[in-house]
């Protein structure tokens, strides 16, 4: 297909995946191997010196995982990607590449509860200090900046609140401060939103969710947008300074617009080690082939459920950017016009106890701590995912005591609604 730019569905199936060169296998084989033979000593030296493309050890590259990486890079419009063991591992690695002890980064308060924990507590041990900003008040991001700021982190569609973040406005603040904008695009998936097109420099995902899509395999990914100038000053030494690990090589100079992905692989993944299993790569790749079909159905079902809930007497409010009543609806039309995703929250009348009872009454929806499955899922964040947050943090993250989060699956929407209806009224 010379010089024709393939569409999203075509890329979802084909990007990165030629027939296997060794066997002609059309599906991507599972290369379940730890290591790879060298042709000779010179070949080994070239690989270790990053001078040749090729495989050494599955902690650094793997042919099955490489297909997944190229696939996601193509879908996000990035220059390169690196797949890792989980979304949390992806975040750890990105900040390992950007931060020195004592540095700061600015993060949205509207994040997945696990990220709030990771940033607010675990990262403290590394001397990486988070400053929180409220995406409903864009100026708070600017106010949180300091000379020590190395990055800004947001979610495109925020979990769990059904809130869409103004990516371009925050990208403008990041550009002015000359720091990269990192966007967690897990809830949207590149089918709904491609943050790099709106000014993001780095995109991360939990592949565990909509990309894999079947609730069977953990994974994470880091996508290099290729846009950030790492050498403009001395603030990103992993990219701009000679690396002693590679005999003084300067990664940005050597690898240009995919240098960040190489740094993530050759330094962060190599040395921290949260590698993705090739089997999981295969499962997630298989999921991605149907991403456009699944994601549209997720959105259509979620909008139907949200609209129905909005009229229910037991429901005090519904937060879903696909609803015209949502404060995020205008931003959704700009950033995710095909749909607002599968995840929505609603407030149940009578608060915490009613939330716990609703969840236990459900027969079709599964009570568990995940999103982005073919199955419809439910959780009461205040008693589970966001339990470790303070009451103020819970409210700020959209996880107050009356909040129920749904991740709407691909079942017949009438069956989903019927189950929610009986659970609300039982």
């Amino acid at each position, binding site marked *: *297909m010379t010089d024709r730019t393939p569409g999203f569905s075509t890329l979802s199936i084909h990007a990165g995946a030629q027939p296997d060169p060794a066997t002609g296998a059309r599906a991507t084989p599972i290369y379940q191997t730890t290591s790879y033979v060298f042709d000779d000593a010179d070949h080994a030296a070239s690989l270790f010196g990053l001078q040749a493309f090729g495989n050494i050890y599955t902690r650094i590259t793997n042919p099955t995982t490489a297909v997944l990486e190229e696939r996601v890079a193509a879908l996000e419009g990035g220059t390169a*990607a690196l797949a890792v063991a989980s979304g949390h591992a992806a975040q750890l690695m990105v900040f390992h590449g950007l931060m020195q002890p004592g540095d700061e980064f600015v993060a949205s308060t509207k994040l997945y509860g696990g990220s709030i924990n990771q940033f607010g507590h675990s990262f403290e041990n590394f001397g990486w200090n988070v400053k929180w900003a409220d995406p409903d008040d864009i100026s708070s991001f600017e106010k949180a900046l300091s000379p020590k700021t190395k990055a800004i982190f947001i979610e495109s569609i925020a979990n769990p609140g059904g809130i869409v973040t103004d990516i371009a406005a925050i990208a403008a603040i990041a550009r002015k401060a000359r720091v990269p904008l990192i966007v967690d695009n897990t809830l949207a998936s590149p089918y709904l939103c491609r943050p790099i097109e709106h000014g993001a420099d780095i995109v991360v995902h939990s592949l565990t969710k909509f990309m894999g899509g079947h609730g069977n395999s953990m994974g994470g990914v880091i996508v290099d947008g290729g846009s950030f100038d790492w050498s403009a000053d001395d603030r990103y030494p992993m990219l701009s300074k000679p690396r002693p690990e590679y005999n*003084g090589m300067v990664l940005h100079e050597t690898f240009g617009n995919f240098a960040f992905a190489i740094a993530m692989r050759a330094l962060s993944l190599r040395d921290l080690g949260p590698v993705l299993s090739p089997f999981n790569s295969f499962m997630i790749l298989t999921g991605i082939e149907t991403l456009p079909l699944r994601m549209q159905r997720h959105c259509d079902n979620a909008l139907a459920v949200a609209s129905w809930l909005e009229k229910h007497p037991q429901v005090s409010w519904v937060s879903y950017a696909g609803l015209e009543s949502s404060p995020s609806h205008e931003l959704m039309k700009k950033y995710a016009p095909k749909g607002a995703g599968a995840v929505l929250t609603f407030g149940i009348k009578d608060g915490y106890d009613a939330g716990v009872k609703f969840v236990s009454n459900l027969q079709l929806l599964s009570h568990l701590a995940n999103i982005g499955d073919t199955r419809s899922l439910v959780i009461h964040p205040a008693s589970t995912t966001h339990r470790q947050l303070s009451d103020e943090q819970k409210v700020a993250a959209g996880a107050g005591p009356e909040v129920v989060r749904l991740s709407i699956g691909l079942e017949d929407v009438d069956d989903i609604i019927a189950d929610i209806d009986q659970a609300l009224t039982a």
Partner: protein
Amino acid sequence: MFHDQYSDATIRAILDEVKTIAIVGASANPVRPSFFVLKYLIDKGYTVFPVNPGQAGKEILGRPCFASLGEVPGPVDMVDIFRASEAVPAIVEEALGLAPLPKVIWTQLGVVHEAAAMRAEEAGMQVIMNRCPKIEYGRLSGEIGWTGVNSRTISSKRPAMRGGFQHRGLRK
């Protein structure tokens, strides 16, 4: 030709047709990008001549290094320039003095000189600027995807193999 908009077919044709490449600004330092490209192109079977006055008379990767393009023995199909943009016009003038004329003037990432490019094109040479032949070869062969890099190509054809799995040949 409008530079910075090269079709994959254009790049593929160049990489398939040229056989001898002079690398102006080739480094003997194994962590420099120009050394990487030299080594990679040798591994892919091209005949490569390093050109660098500072290394003249010495060898890089077993290849004798020359002080100037004029000293390279035999015809040069492509001149790959690893120098600052302002050095490009003089290198193009030197290339114009070669007989036969090189088919291609190629400048590396970040190396751009429009006037020199026009001069080379008027003389009948093809010009590619602000690209890396290693990246382009790796991209068009699919090999660059082994490192998770977006090759921006898709194909339902089994990749050609050359010298075993680790050396994938160019996609035809």
